[in-house]
């Protein structure tokens, strides 16, 4: 499995919005079983890159491959059903649905019964529904929210909403999990717990790519780091290498120096 073949390949990807080059020729790979962090100051193109991987925007040029298959150009739900699942920078739950229902939607891709099968309650749909519920409960236990299963998701505090979103993504049984600033808005303790949780997710065999803005979480748990600035890759390496990289320091200090 770890024959050196990357899980995700990003090749010379470009994306502009009205003349602004949000992502300008970025290339890197994510290897199976690793935690890869993507860092950079505001406007570096991190979230745009995630949106390109998950198919929310079309690419201008370049190519994205998952397990050797080209995924750029596919619709988001097709990409998700191949095993790439993401969370969002501003948590995007289904606020009117319960915590459990939210996570069950995560397991949507594991089910097969379609519209007509559901209408006529064909045999199999009930069993499938039970399985989806079990998977969802298992994931809620994993993130420690099993006792909140029946609460409306929109009523939880932000820290818990992030955990629900994580459980929802895990319920999809992803091979590659994209986490967009998972620690944003969390306090120090919550951030530490989240870091431990992410490491445990990796131990389950899930490959992780995560965006982090302030580097605090990243440096402790990541195997590799890619640094972006103004849409370009400026460095790639281990957390230690990135920490001492003059270009990275300049990008961050330059931002703060303004």
């Amino acid at each position: 499995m770890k024959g050196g073949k990357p899980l995700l390949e990003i090749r010379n990807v470009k994306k502009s919005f009205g003349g602004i080059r949000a992502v300008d020729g970025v290339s890197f790979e994510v290897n199976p079983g690793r935690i890869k962090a993507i860092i950079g100051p505001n406007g570096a193109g991190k979230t745009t890159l995630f949106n390109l991987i998950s198919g929310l925007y079309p690419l201008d040029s370049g190519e994205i491959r998952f397990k050797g298959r080209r995924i750029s150009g596919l619709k988001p739900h097709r990409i998700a059903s191949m095993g790439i699942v993401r969370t969002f920078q501003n948590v995007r739950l289904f606020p009117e649905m319960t915590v459990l229902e939210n996570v069950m939607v995560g397991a949507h891709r594991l089910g097969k019964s379609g519209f007509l099968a559901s209408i006529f309650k064909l045999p199999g749909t009930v069993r499938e529904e039970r399985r989806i519920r079990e998977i969802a409960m298992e994931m809620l236990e994993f993130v420690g929210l099993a006792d909140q299963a029946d609460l409306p998701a929109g009523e939880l505090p932000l820290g818990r909403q992030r955990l629900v979103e994580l459980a929802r993504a895990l319920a999809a049984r992803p091979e590659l999990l994209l986490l967009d600033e998972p620690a944003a808005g969390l306090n120090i303790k919550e951030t530490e717990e989240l870091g431990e949780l992410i490491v445990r997710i990796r131990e389950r065999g899930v490959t992780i790519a995560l965006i982090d803005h302030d580097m605090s979480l990243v440096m402790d748990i990541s195997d590799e780091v890619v640094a972006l600035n103004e849409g370009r890759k400026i460095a790639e390496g281990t957390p230690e290498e990135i920490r001492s990289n003059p270009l990275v320091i300049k990008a961050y200090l330059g931002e703060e120096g303004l």
Partner: protein
Amino acid sequence: MRDKQLLLAVIIGSALAPLATLPAESGGYYVRVMNVILLYCIITSGLSLLMGYAGQISLGHAAFFGLGAYGSGLLAVKLSLSPWLAMPIAVLGTALVAAAVGVPVLKLKGHYLAMATLGFGEIIYVFLKELNWLTGDPAGLIGIPPFKLFGRELISSISQYYLTWAFLSAVLLISVSLIRSRIGRALRAIHGDELAAGALGVDVSRLKLQVFVLSAVYGAVAGSLYAHFEGFIGYSTFGLMLSIKLVTMVVIGGMSSIWGALLGTAVLTALPQFLTVFKEFEMAVYGAILIGTMIFSPKGIAGALARRRGVERGKAAA
């Protein structure tokens, strides 16, 4: 659990309802009113799936009702088909129209979707009105044969009521199965956050189209029943006013559940019968009720009832 119990309650309750009117002189009249309620309930339960669950509005559903009615009526009148055969053909035809319209229109959201469906409704309305050579002279399409069952024509109010009841029961069984399924959950997820649903593997555009077509099918079934009950249909029934009425019923009842839609339909259909004073101002009263509901109980009558129950439960706990 609750959905199943309510389903049973509605099916049994509506089966028994005519008994309450039997001793009265005007029993037939009340049964006719109740038949209209059930007929509308078939349409509004579909609208509830589309609006309340999937979060997509339609201001053109009178068109599907009209297509079902004219399709079934024309097949029976011009081709002398049995109503039992005319109905499925008309329903299938309406489903195809809905699919063809739905593909481009459902790419739109919110107000734009409302405008587009309204436009579609008006187009169908104009066709029904202007294709006189086909749809009958301005007076309408006349001589539509009634349904026959065991060699007897279903002409009496009570026989028509129970036919509508049978169809509504089937529609509700289907709808509740859908609501409680993986697909129903995905529809609500689309309502909550379309983008997030897509990112989890939910095929958003496909599901939107499927629920749109299903709601059109419900409308067409109701239309076909209506045509063969009345024996006569005129284009003016199927205009924007009806579309707005249907939406109003769903909204006033409460969009968060199909039961709210049924309640809203019953209230708004029965109300004008009892408040005949408002006859001329019926639409004004509708509008006032809609505004009042939106201000005082945005989740409709069902929402207000649920809230009250919640308060009482809270009191009991205290």
